[in-house]
């Protein structure tokens, strides 16, 4: 009988050994179960920091956050419920609801049922949600723009794309990131630091409390607030004036290079690009006629027209080719192949040449510059002139803190060599450059900056849109002065003449008593249609606070449209009022797009 007991004992022992062997395998050798256990029970919840606000220069909030809510559900933990009532409450179709559950019937992982429920809707849903176990809401933050203006400057947020995910480990799929404007350029300042909370959860995904008393948690750090240099009221006025027009307004504070207003028209309401509305509205607006998403202030390259004359005047003064007392007796300018027409004739003084915008005077000036005997040939003289022009920040990437800035057009002599043949061109070939036409293209930002240089008598600070970031301050390159190649002493006669433009010249519609506005009209010829109306201005003359450039596409004379717009921007900024409501009405109501 010993053998029988032995065999039974043997079976008992073998079983025990098999169990111990298997247990040794799953408990000691195989690590995969430990990982599964952790995934089972630890939930890492990302705490999104609140994104930095953006203020305008007067302290008004222009970009803020609003709370929205995502409705989520843990499919495994729901109970039977009245779907019709539920769908009505949530505002989704039964089909959508069913499709969510069909796919993830057994899932313990939360599924998003509806994104971005606004506060009002949330209140209504939250009140009734207790009837539906397994459903819960999660707070999310979205942008909101209290002033529906400056869309192209402020930019917008969108979900990260594949490249952004790859390039920056900060982001997780589904995160929002700045796609343009301030939101994009200052993304790293605005976004802050994400935090993490580690929770232990039970089988139904219910939170059971913090893991290890929260010692693995990381606090979220709110993004930095940004103070923009924009004056939002000025921006608003600019957009109001530019409605139904194509064009742009750029206003700069000459002393600091701070951009006060940056209007591109047509534009759109930035609130259209929030959250889930983005995809739908973006497609709609992207393909709209006249491209509201195209920031003309940085990307349109217009010929400056007559607003370029002061620059040629300054260069000629610096080169000693003329003085502020130089008078030419003129009756148009004979360019050999054709006569450059001029509405001014007879004896034209330096001051009058700017005041009345004499074409022939500046053709003569350019002829002097290019045929300067100090240079070996025209090409060298041209190249020297070109460096002067560039020293005004024209046809140069200024390095502003907004994306997609264009360089502009100002060809080197090689272009003409190629086009006409080396030595086969002279000043008359390029005479259009004298009056800001021909192979020239400056962005409105560059033209505004050029105006600021005149106002400052020879220097500029790179125009920028952000005045202050948290405690750190802005990049020091936005504090440095850049000098033009024209000496300070030559600016006074130009400024005097520009004052005369407004007080009794081509820009009289820009005259506002007591403001000392200096300006220059321009009518930029445009091969595609009616001329662009251009005006540059700054004020007050001796202590300039604001420099403006205005372009109105296909609107005709600079004096008619651009000049009054510029003057109202200046007046609004300096006095916070508009003294000519009739003009405001006339300009804002004018529709200059219809003929295009």
């Amino acid at each position: 009988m010993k053998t029988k007991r032995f065999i039974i004992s043997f079976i008992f022992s073998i079983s025990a050994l098999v169990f111990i062997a298997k247990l040794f395998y799953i408990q000691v050798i195989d690590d995969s179960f430990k990982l599964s256990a952790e995934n089972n029970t630890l939930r890492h919840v990302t705490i999104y920091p609140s994104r930095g606000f953006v203020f305008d220069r007067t302290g008004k909030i222009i970009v803020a956050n609003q709370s929205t809510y995502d409705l989520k559900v843990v499919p495994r933990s729901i109970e039977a419920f009245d779907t019709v009532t539920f769908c009505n409450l949530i505002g989704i179709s039964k089909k959508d609801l069913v499709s969510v559950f069909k796919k993830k019937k057994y899932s313990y992982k939360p599924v998003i049922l509806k994104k971005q429920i606004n506060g009002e809707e949330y209140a209504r849903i939250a009140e009734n949600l207790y009837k539906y176990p397994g459903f819960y809401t999660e707070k999310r933050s979205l942008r909101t723009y209290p002033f529906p203006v400056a869309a192209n400057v402020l930019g917008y947020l969108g979900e990260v794309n594949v490249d952004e995910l790859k390039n920056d480990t900060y982001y997780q799929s589904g995160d929002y990131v700045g796609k343009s404007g301030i939101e994009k350029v200052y993304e790293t300042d605005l976004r802050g630091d994400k935090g993490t909370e580690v929770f232990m959860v039970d089988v139904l995904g219910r939170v059971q409390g913090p893991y290890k008393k929260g010692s693995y948690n990381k606090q979220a750090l709110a993004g930095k607030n940004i103070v923009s240099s924009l004056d939002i009221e000025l921006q608003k006025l600019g957009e109001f004036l530019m409605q139904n027009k194509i064009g742009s307004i750029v206003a700069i504070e000459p002393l600091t290079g701070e951009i006060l207003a940056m209007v591109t028209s047509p534009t759109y309401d930035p609130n259209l690009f929030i959250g889930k509305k983005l995809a739908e509205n973006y497609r709609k607006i992207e393909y709209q006629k006249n491209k509201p998403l195209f920031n003309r202030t940085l990307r349109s390259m217009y010929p400056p027209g007559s607003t370029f004359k002061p620059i040629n005047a300054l260069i000629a003064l610096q080169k000693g080719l003329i003085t502020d007392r130089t008078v030419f007796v003129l009756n148009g300018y004979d360019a050999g192949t054709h006569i450059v027409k001029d509405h001014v004739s007879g004896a034209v003084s330096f001051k009058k040449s700017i005041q009345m915008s004499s074409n022939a005077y500046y053709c003569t000036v350019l002829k002097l510059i290019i045929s300067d005997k100090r240079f070996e040939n025209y090409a060298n003289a041209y190249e020297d002139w070109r460096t002067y022009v560039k020293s005004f920040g024209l046809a140069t990437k200024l390095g502003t803190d907004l994306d997609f800035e264009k360089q502009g057009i100002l060809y080197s002599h090689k272009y003409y060599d190629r086009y006409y043949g080396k030595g086969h061109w002279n000043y008359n070939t390029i005479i259009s450059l004298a009056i800001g036409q021909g192979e020239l293209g400056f962005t409105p930002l560059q033209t505004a900056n050029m105006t600021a240089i005149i106002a400052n008598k020879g220097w500029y600070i790179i125009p920028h849109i952000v005045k202050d970031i948290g405690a750190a301050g802005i990049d020091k390159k936005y504090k440095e002065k850049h000098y033009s190649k024209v000496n300070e002493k030559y600016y006074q006669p130009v400024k005097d003449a520009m004052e005369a433009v407004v007080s009794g010249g081509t820009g009289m519609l820009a005259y506002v008593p007591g403001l000392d506005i200096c300006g220059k009209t321009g009518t930029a010829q445009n091969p595609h249609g009616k001329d662009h109306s251009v005006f540059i201005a700054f004020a007050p003359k001796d202590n300039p606070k604001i420099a403006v450039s205005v372009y109105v596409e296909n609107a005709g004379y600079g004096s008619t449209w651009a000049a009054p717009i510029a003057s109202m921007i200046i007046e609004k900024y300096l006095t916070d009022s508009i003294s000519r409501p009739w003009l405001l009405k006339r300009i804002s109501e004018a529709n200059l797009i219809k003929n295009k």
Partner: protein
Amino acid sequence: MKSKVIQKIDLITLLLYFLLITAGWMNIYSSSYDGSGFSFSSRYGKELIMILINVLFLIGILFLEVHIIPTVSYYIYGFIILLLVLVLFIGDKTGGSRSWFIIGNFKLQPAEFAKLATALALAKFAGREGLKIMSNFRDLIILLFIIAFPAFLILLQGDAGSALVFASFIFVLYRQGLPFYILVIIFIEILVFISVFFISLNTLFIILIIGILLIYRILTGNKRETRLAALLIIGLSMIGFMYIIFFRKNIPVNIILLISVSIVSVIKMIRVFNKGKLLQFIIPLLLLFYIGSAYSVDYVFNNVLKEHQQTRINVLFGIEKDITGVGYNVHQSEIAIGSGGFSGKGYLKGTQTKFNFVPEQDTDFIFCTVGEEWGFIGTSGVIIIFTILLFRILKIAERQKSVYTRIFGYSLASVLFFHYAVNVAMTIGLAPVIGIPLPFFSYGGSSLFAFSLFLFVFLRLDAERNTLFS
């Protein structure tokens, strides 16, 4: 008298018992502990009350007049059979089976006590002087009936797991004279059943034919006949294959094998019939039985087993991978045990069991808590303690003069082994999920009380081993 009983009680078994009960309660406490203060209305609180009542009751058992036990065996058996029938009619239906009496706040599961009652009846009947299991056919039938009848009633309740426990009495029958080869035959049949899920019928048949021929060769020592049988089977199969090839019939290979084997086996069986050569008759019969049973596996699987039982078997064999559905239990159970590592996460520090990832974590899957919180040290410790206890019970059983007590002891060891082994095996994915509790560990009064009673009646009988003869 009192002091004598205490002195004669087997202290090692008693110690192991209290070790298991204490460890069991600690794990129930851990898996149902919710962080608040101690409460008697919680599961661990209720279990503690049951343990205390149970221990008081067991002390009472020790003072029982021991001679009564054998005499009332049949009455107890009869009473339990009555309860098993009764529960079919007035029992409470929970979780698909009708196996509970509900009396006020008290729940009673007669199936748990049926094992004890069966052991009593079995001991009484098989303990008779001069009983020879294999020589008296009538006695064997009665013995099998004593075991099978309560199992059948429990199966009717829908509690297949508890019914299956009665299969463990095979060890008792073996101890009392059932030949070893019966165990081997049953073992091979189980292997055949399992292998159908993993290998093709053709492969299985070839293995079976070669295996049985080898066994025949070894047991009979008849080399010539074995070779002849092998050649006959091969030859007949060849004819079959040629028939398929020439007449382009679509007959599966295993059918050809079946026919060849059947012809050879039947010829052999007819030749040795009534010539007293039992072995030469039984071995071909067994071959036919195994091959036939392989065909019936799908029938048994599809028609006898219930849907959830089919799924459990599929999950065990890795045929179905339903991690969120039925396979969820086993998967989560393995995660919980596996995540414990070598030394565990520490008492009360388990996360899988605490946060309800493992279903029935304080009843059938209590072993997960052990695995998660005590690690490999804990799990192997529990297995070793159970094994020592089983060895101890066998040792005690063998030192009895009374056959009654010995049979009763073997019954106890068998049932205890089956419960613990199947429960542990299912939590670590070695057996399909059969809902039977881990003795002394799982939450539940009926199970605890029935096993304690079983053990203590045995200890009480053992204490009187010098006075008890029968």
